[in-house]
């Protein structure tokens, strides 16, 4: 482990220049600012919002739950309640008549100093959902068109292409065929079945997989083939389950994405959707985008990769040739642990795969966010230095495990944790469950019938 004294070499920057925010602020008039704020607060919120605002008594119990507060030497302004006070409370008190400097500060707080991870809600005696409050602030930012540049560009991609990385339609299909061809080195009859009508499972991923990490699709194809799964992937838009619009308050695009995802599955007549190792994407189609569209719950059964791998391993569809030897620890992605309760199953999967599991503290639903979640990492390079400072508590948590390998079953977490290990010099390899399964599995085809 590296000397942790390097952690304080930077200080949190409050004067970050984000072109999109700056240009957006220039265009605003006092009337527009007040109009949008009052419209969102009066027309788009309801009893829940009012109850939260009226109930919070600033007890401070949420503060110790927040990794930003802890990472910034317990600076009170980073406590969740203070973030609400610095944003929503002031907008309410001033009836929307706030300055551009206030808005700039608000963008920074809502978009980069809160992971909307919901950890604080677990410690609030009233269960106030601060994430909902911060997402309401982001909704105001969206309507005022002062969303940070990088994440707005991602949402633009979502809206134009139905995927978050401007992956063109042919690039998606070509990538699948390329991975299929490569994976035939291992199983000569392996397929990534495209548009297979009536398959049991539609497998969906987030756009960084075809864009940068096509090897993950290869690994999944090998796992699916060995497990004898009747699966397919759609060639049409709807294959990307990610949703940054959910985090910018662009609920309309968020709902449109969830609709495309479920329609792709319905068109293929699958029984269920299995999604890759991504947390925010799960939240998007399980909890957020679907509900905006009018589906109280997912209209087609939705299974996160943790759940699916658990099923494959416990039913013997995937057999472990030899358990993974390096010491491993597990990061619990907020959206599938606090959001879905998959933390116990995740541990069962770890223990089925690995010999030496070292628990992280705190863990399970109490685990800290990776620091990248909630769209924070997607706000991009202008905020990276500050993000690293805000991730100090996570870095300490990782170091304390002494594990060689960190399993993070979520793309956002992966990226954020890689930034932490690089920035702080933590000597820890980061892997997905899929990486480990691919490494330890027997490369034989399950014969137990479909």
């Amino acid at each position: 482990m590296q000397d942790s004294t390097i952690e304080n070499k930077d200080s949190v920057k409050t004067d970050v220049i984000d072109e999109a925010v700056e240009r957006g602020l220039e265009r605003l008039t006092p009337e527009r600012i007040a109009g949008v704020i009052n419209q969102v607060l009066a027309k788009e919120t309801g009893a829940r919002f009012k109850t939260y605002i009226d109930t919070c008594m600033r007890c401070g119990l949420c503060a110790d739950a927040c990794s930003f507060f802890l990472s910034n030497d317990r600076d009170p302004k980073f406590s969740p309640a203070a973030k609400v006070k610095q944003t929503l409370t002031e907008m309410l008190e001033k009836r929307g008549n706030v300055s551009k400097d206030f808005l700039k500060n608000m963008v920074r707080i809502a978009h980069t100093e809160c992971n909307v991870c919901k950890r604080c809600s677990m410690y609030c005696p009233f269960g106030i959902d601060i994430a909902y409050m911060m997402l309401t602030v982001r909704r105001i930012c969206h309507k005022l068109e002062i969303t940070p540049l990088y994440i707005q560009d991602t949402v633009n991609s979502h809206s134009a292409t139905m995927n978050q990385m401007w992956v063109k339609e042919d690039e998606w299909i070509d990538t699948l065929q390329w991975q299929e061809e490569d994976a035939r080195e291992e199983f000569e009859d392996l397929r990534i079945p495209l548009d297979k009508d009536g398959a049991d499972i539609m497998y969906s991923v987030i756009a960084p997989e075809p864009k940068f990490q096509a090897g993950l699709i290869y690994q999944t194809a090998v796992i699916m083939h060995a497990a004898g799964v009747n699966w397919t992937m759609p060639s049409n838009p709807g294959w990307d389950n990610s949703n940054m619009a959910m985090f910018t308050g662009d609920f309309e695009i968020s709902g449109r994405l969830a609709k495309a995802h479920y329609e792709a599955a319905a068109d293929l007549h699958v029984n269920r959707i299995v999604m890759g190792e991504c947390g925010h994407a799960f939240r998007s189609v399980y909890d957020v985008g679907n509900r905006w569209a009018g589906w109280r719950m997912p209209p087609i059964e939705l299974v996160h990769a943790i759940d699916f791998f658990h099923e494959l391993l416990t039913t013997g569809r995937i057999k472990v040739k030899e358990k993974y030897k390096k010491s491993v620890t597990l990061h619990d992605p907020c959206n599938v642990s606090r959001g879905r309760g998959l933390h116990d199953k995740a541990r069962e999967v770890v223990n089925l795969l690995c010999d030496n599991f070292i628990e992280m503290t705190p863990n399970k639903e109490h685990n800290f966010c990776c620091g990248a979640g909630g769209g924070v990492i997607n706000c991009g390079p202008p905020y990276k230095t500050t993000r690293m400072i805000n991730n100090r508590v996570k870095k300490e948590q990782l170091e304390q495990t002494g594990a060689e390998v960190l399993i993070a079953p979520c793309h956002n977490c992966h990226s954020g944790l890689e930034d932490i290990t690089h920035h702080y010099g933590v000597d820890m390899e980061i892997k997905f469950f899929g990486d480990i399964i691919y490494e330890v599995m027997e490369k034989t085809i399950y014969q137990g019938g479909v």
Partner: protein
Amino acid sequence: MNDKNANGRNAWDWQTEKKQIPVKEWESQFNWVEEPHVSPDGEQVASIVNSDEAEFSICVNGDVWEDTFEKAWSLKFSPDGRLAVLAANDEEWTVCIDGTEWESRFDYIWGMTFSSDGSYLGAAIQQDGEYGVVVNDEPWESLYENMNHFTLSEQGGSAAVVQVSSMSQGDIDGFAGGLFSLAVNGEPMPQTFMNIWDPAFDSQGKHLAFTIRKNRSDYSIFQVDTAWDQTFQSAWKPAFIENDTSLVAPVRTGGKWYLYKNARPFWSNVYEQLWQIAVHQEKKSIAAIVSDSYGKWTVSQDDRPWTNHADQMITDLSFSEQGDTLCALFKTNGAWTVVANDKPWDLGADKLWKPAMDATGEIVAARFEKQGRYHLAVNGRVAPGDYDMLFDPEISPDGTKILIKSITGGIYSRQVLSVDGLI
């Protein structure tokens, strides 16, 4: 509406009781055999087959096409019974129909689509990093740096959302200024928008309508040659009605969904959600999938919601040819069923496909899967027998017979049964 006679249904063999083809045998002849596809008349069953590394062909009724391909995917029968596949050799892609390749070659091709009579085949193409459409081997003359939402009219017209101006990475102001237009038969409309979705042709293939986003918060509808003045919180795919002179579209305002006609409120009911419009021009009837209370779904026909609801999902809303029957697939508690004219069947299906209907709508037949076995249901009754796999049923033009195409025990069967014997 499909012209079923144009698809040759009258000329089909509706007399033979059973024809069989042993498809399982193919597996011993090839490295692998991909999922089978069956022609509408049931006379042909075909699969992509692999014989060697990068050596694919098509096996039809046990006979293999002469040509082999390094790559092949998207095998489909057209409605008029032609067999088409997207195939590549030497990294050049084309369409191969019944064993004959198109002359055009592309760097990539996908999204193969047929007009409902099968006479037009269109697909999206990429050539030298630019995008366009090809219809019946005639590619667009102009190509674009990005393209989505390709659609094909019944008359062979093509349209797609195209990016008409370049944008540097992260240029969100450029994006907001409107980079996208709709190209019709390759030529872009003069109007550009921040987003364009869901282009829809009228029934004559002369006019188009689509959903637009004017800025981050304002959505609207583009009708023929102009955008509606009104803006909305969101909008879904519009549909032409009344012999294509009018347009209806679902729009969201004040957090609720409305059906608008020609930019004015049309239906008086307000919905939690409203999408997937079905229109019967002659009957002047409009239907849509709606949520009339949050999390509860039903069908609204001419603004009258059905009494039956689904708590999960409704799909495949469609009218019979003469417009007397309106069908949809309802999913509740994980089980699918058909609901026809607000009357639910008792299927409890795990998977269910869009029903076939005769012209009058009196005969409705659907295939479904339950606990891993396929079944046929006709007018709500489950027909005797089950199958390893069942393909879409076809109803004879006179409505007296049903063509059943199935695979069981590795044998493909084409069987014509009397409707009377099934209901």
